[in-house]
Structures are given as C-alpha cells and as structure tokens.
C-alpha cells in the first residue's frame, strides 16, 4: 500500500482571517487577454458577476472555487491576502475557505432533513444543536415550511434551495461564499443574501437579476469568457434598488397567494414608496 500524507482529519474552523482575495486575469474564449487584469475584493464585500449566458460566469466562479493557479482553461490565478495559496489549502477540502451554492436545485441523497444536517454538521466539526437553527432559517426563506422529518428528495426546488442556503450560512460557514444564481428558486433573495453574508465574509454572486445585481457594491461584467469591466453601484442605482426590492417582495407575496389558492384581483403598479411599503408585508 502507498502512504500518503493523511489529510483526512475533521474540518476545523476557519484557518485564518481572510482580508482579501485577488483575481489575476487570464485569457478569454478567443484567446485574447482579459481587459480586467486584477480585481481585489476585500472582506465584507458582496460582488456581482453578470453577463449573458455562456459568457463565462460559472467558469469564473469555478476558478475561485479551485483557487486556480494558471492551471484552468482561463489561465487565471487567485491570491488570498495577496499571496498564492498553498497546495494543501487548494486541494485539501478540510481546509476549504470556500462555500459554494451551485445551480443544483434538488437533493439526491436519500435521507431525512435532520439526518442530512446532522451528518453535515459532523463533517464540518459542528455541534448537532445547530440543526434546528438551520431549519428555522431555511423556513424564513421559503413559503412552504420544511419539516425536519421530510425526506430530502421530496423537497420542492424552493425548499431545497432555502435549505442549501441556510446550510451554507450556518454549517459550512466559510469566509468566501460563491453563489451561482439564486433568483429562480422562489425564495426570499434579499433575506438569503443577508443570511449568507455578514461576519466579514466575501460573497460573489452570479446573477441576471436586477434585485441582486443592485444589492452588490460592485459587479464584474463578463463577455466571451473574459472579465470585461468592473461597475460600481451608483447612488442612483441604490435608489432604484430599493424600489425593485419592494416590487420583488410584492411578487413573492403574489406567488404565495397563488400557492394557497387565493384570487389575485388587485395589483397596482404604483411605485410610490409609502404605498409600496404598506402593501409589501
């Protein structure tokens, strides 16, 4: 038998504080150098990744997830606190600095919600007590209550997604969180993003959704596999953000009405903030 370095000890807490990550640009699909050559993201920042389908958003997320070192298709590299991460930090999942919420909308594991959460808590070296907190938080994100004895595989897309978000926020609790499109899941996006961020975490969120895009501080614009430009959310955009957030909540509310068999006979496109605020909750 071969002897390998034993990298199988349980995951302990975050190994060191992450102050920043830096993305060093590589090459786009056409083989040209990316216009954006360095992006530094500081702790506590929420960054959006936007661009048309096939523009390379998920690959960028993938590069960060793998802590690429000129070894992926894009030839990008990622620095942590300005330094190259060690081989160990890159390959040993127990030292993982990155939590990831991918596009998968359903669970495949054949177990109950509580069994799943307990197992995951154990993997991450967390106390089982956090399990109820995860379910509580998940239930704040979805209109269809999740019960701890539900089978994972029968959860709806929205329930699964809500549970994944709460699980990433509370059990995985890594300093860098990557989110690949949460908009289509029918969960409360604003609350989801709030739950995931905080405590100085760095969040990168791939999105087509104006609600999420305008909630970020800055956003990377992707095209043809390369990072084209970096937009900073303007003061005007922040005003717009407030309004579309309210609109979004109203649509969530309508969705609930549909779900519970109610009639929707009244809906005004009134953007007056006072009115919206009253109707929102």
């Amino acid at each position, binding site marked *: 038998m*071969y002897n390998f370095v034993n990298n199988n000890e349980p995951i302990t807490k975050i190994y060191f504080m992450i102050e920043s990550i830096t993305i060093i640009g590589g090459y786009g699909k056409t083989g040209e150098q990316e216009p954006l050559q360095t992006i530094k993201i500081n702790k506590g920042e929420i960054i959006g990744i936007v661009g048309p389908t096939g523009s390379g958003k998920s690959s960028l997320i*993938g590069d960060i997830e*793998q802590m690429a070192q000129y070894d992926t298709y894009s030839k990008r590299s990622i620095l942590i606190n300005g330094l190259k991460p060690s081989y160990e930090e890159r390959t040993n999942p127990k030292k993982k600095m990155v939590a990831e919420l991918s596009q998968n909308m359903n669970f495949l*594991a054949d177990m109950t919600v509580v069994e*799943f959460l307990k197992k995951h808590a154990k993997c991450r070296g967390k106390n089982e007590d956090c399990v109820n907190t995860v379910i509580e938080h998940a239930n704040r994100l979805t209109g269809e209550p999740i019960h701890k004895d539900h089978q994972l595989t029968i959860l709806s897309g929205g329930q699964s997604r809500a549970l994944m978000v709460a699980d990433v926020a509370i059990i995985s609790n890594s300093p860098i969180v990557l989110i690949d499109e949460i908009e289509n899941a029918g969960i409360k996006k604003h609350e989801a993003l709030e739950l995931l961020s905080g405590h100085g975490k760095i969040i990168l969120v791939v999105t087509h959704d104006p609600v999420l895009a305008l909630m970020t501080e800055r956003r990377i614009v992707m095209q043809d596999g390369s990072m084209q430009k970096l937009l900073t959310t303007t003061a005007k955009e922040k005003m717009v953000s407030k309004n579309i957030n309210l609109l979004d909540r109203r649509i969530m509310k309508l969705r609930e009405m549909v779900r519970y068999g109610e009639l929707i006979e009244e809906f005004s496109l009134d953007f007056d903030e006072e009115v919206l605020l009253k109707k929102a909750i």
Partner: protein
Amino acid sequence: MMKFVIVAGTPGSGKTSVLLHAINHLKNKSIQPSVAKIDCLYTDDDKRYAKTGVPVLVGLSKDMCPDHFGIYNTEELLDFAIKNKSDLLIVETAGLCHRCSPYTKGSLGICVIDATSGPNTPMKVGPFLSTADIVAITKGDVISQAEREIFRESVLEMNPNAKIIEINGLSGKGCSELAEEIMLAKAVESGDDVLRHNAPLAICTLCVGETRVNKAHHRGILRRIDGFQFYEGE
C-alpha cells in the same frame, strides 16, 4: 520498469472519462501509457481510448468474474504494455462483483465512485473501495457541496487511508492531480505480485453451471439467508 495502475468502479461511474483527461496530462509530460479494458460482455471504451493515440487492449471475461479474469491475465496485459514500449499500464476494470478487489500489492489501486449514487454506497461496494490507494469521487457537479462532503466522509469511514480526489469526468477538474499520483506510482515486480484482498471463498455448483433452483441440487460452500454457512457434499 513498468508502473501498473488498476482502476475499478461500478459501471458508468466515470472511469473512462477521468482517465481520458488524465492520459492527456500524462502525454503532456511525455509519458506513453498503454491501456487495457476488462469488461464482461461488451465495451466500446477501446474506441474512446484509441482517440488519444494510446495502445488499447480489450479483454472480455464472458462467464468468468471480470476481476478474476483480469488477475488471471495480468502477465498478458503487462506484456502488451512492454511490447508497446510503455512504462505505464493502466487497466480499467468493470468491478461488478462487490466482493472482489482487483488491486495487487504492487499496483496503484484507484477506485472511481459516483457521488450521486448516495452516501450509503461506500458501505455497499466492499473491498474495491476499502483497499484502494486513491478514491476518485466523480459527478460532484450535480449535487450540493454539503452532499459532497457527506459522501466524502462515508468514503473515509470505509477507507481512512485513501487519498481522496474530487474529480470531474466532464470538465476534467482534478484529473491533473490524478495524473500526478499516477506518475508517483512505484514500478511493479511482475511474477511475484500478490492480491491485496482474497477473492470470495464460496465455490458452489451454481458457480460451475447448475441452473436448477431447488436446494436439493446444490453442493459446495453455501450460505443460507439467515447467515448460516456450511459445506454440502463429499
């Protein structure tokens, strides 16, 4: 000096997909492997391997257990690689029988296992997982990160000493790491290599062709559903 790599895993787990990526990495490092595919009845993996330009040999075990068949023909496989001037032989084997393990002590044993098969699978597949040096977990892309972590823990429960590589047969993620491990493998001394795990002990009349179901017709080492095992015969 020949390096001998045995890759086992349930059908469709992604063995060929990850090996194709790994072979490209090996070729970039000027290593020319030979590949042998052992299967039971049918395979078209040889065509997929041939596209990378490596020499490929197919062995179909037919009525024999594919693991036993592969072991029995090890010398022929190694000779094939020598004839093709390779210094690395990679054998992909079907691994259908969950009681056998195809790895020899001198080989590098790689188990390829599909993460979507559920966190209880590592408990079910037996020695080809528990005696592997490297466990390559595929298809993590279609499940959540939490499920990947739970699956990884169940693998470690069955084989605490394995090096685990989370790998993707589609994107090739992790395949360069697998290629690195293959390059680090020790050369095998052919002729006196031994199996890591003994083949299952039972030999019964069913093994040699009895088709009648009734108990009265069976001899050999038999095991009842209640777990009682005995020898029936002369």
